[in-house]
């Protein structure tokens, strides 16, 4: 089996150090928000997780386009891995947001435009994984998945701009939000720094996960090839 390269080991180590540093900043450096208290600290990983889920789905689009142009299976693996990791960040965002909403909005969940569009986006990418499961032929699967990944990305800008287009409870981090938004706060300079550091860290976590997931995908493909060679249908 493929041994872990030295570079990947170092990358994993750097990522772990960044995660610890980010959590230390969140818990010990960032000031407590004056109204909602400590639960506001969830925001430092909730927002980067949401951004990173958008990034992951964008990577799927880019990888899908390159696959359609070149036909190299490597790019299909990138697109697939990126959707899987993007969904991980999507679930992290939804659950942490729900936990934040309970004391702030007095409810775990509401069908607010941002929450609704984000849920639809998540379901679109769950369907991407189901589509892949349903197609046997690897080339056909990769082609269909690439096209679906490109079309499915339409849900990402709709989700992002939903808080600007419709009246919403959801606070806006960048730009002006809806007057009905609840739970927003003015960020002090330390809060901005912690948010930016967390954003950087969560992005590094994404690329680290992608590298490790691609390694696993290569191994899976190797085993599939072995099976096809030894156990012909």
């Amino acid at each position, binding site marked *: *089996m*493929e*041994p872990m390269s030295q570079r990947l080991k170092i990358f994993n180590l750097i990522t772990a150090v960044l995660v610890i540093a980010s*959590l230390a900043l*969140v818990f010990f450096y960032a000031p*407590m*928000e*004056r*109204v*909602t*208290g*400590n*639960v*506001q*600290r*969830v925001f430092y*990983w*909730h927002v980067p*997780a949401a951004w990173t889920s958008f990034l992951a789905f964008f990577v799927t689009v880019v990888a899908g386009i390159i696959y359609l142009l070149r036909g*190299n299976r*490597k790019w299909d693996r990138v697109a697939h891995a990126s959707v899987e990791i993007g969904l*991980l960040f999507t*679930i*992290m965002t939804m*659950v*942490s947001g729900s*936990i*934040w909403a*309970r*004391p702030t909005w007095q409810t775990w969940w509401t069908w607010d435009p941002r929450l609704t569009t984000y849920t639809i986006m998540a379901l679109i990418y769950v369907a991407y994984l189901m589509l892949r499961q349903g197609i046997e032929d690897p080339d056909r699967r990769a082609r269909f998945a690439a096209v679906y990944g490109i079309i499915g990305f339409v849900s990402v800008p709709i989700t992002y701009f939903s808080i600007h287009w419709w009246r919403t409870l959801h606070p806006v981090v960048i730009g002006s939000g809806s007057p009905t938004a609840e739970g927003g706060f003015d960020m002090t300079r330390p809060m901005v720094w912690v948010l930016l550091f967390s954003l950087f860290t969560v992005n590094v*976590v994404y690329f680290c*996960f992608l590298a*490790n*997931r691609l390694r*696993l995908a*290569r*191994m*899976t493909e*190797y*085993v599939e*090839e*072995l*099976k096809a*060679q*030894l*156990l012909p249908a």
Partner: protein
Amino acid sequence: MAEMIALLSSFPAQAEPLETTGYMLLGYAFLIGLPLLYILSWVVQRRNLERDVELLRSLSQEAERPAGAPEAAAARPPLEQRPAE
């Protein structure tokens, strides 16, 4: 005006933030716990793949070896010896 000031000062000011530490801990338990579970799933998948490779190699050796002959090398080179894409 004085009445207004007296009325406003009679409202209790929110001096203390809400006590929401439990929600924060729950949030981070999930934010850290879910990726750790994901990593654990890789470990399990990798172990299963290694088991599959061992099984497939032994099957291929048995299939290729004539009765009584010494063990043959695996049909395919290990992954680390294959050219990178």
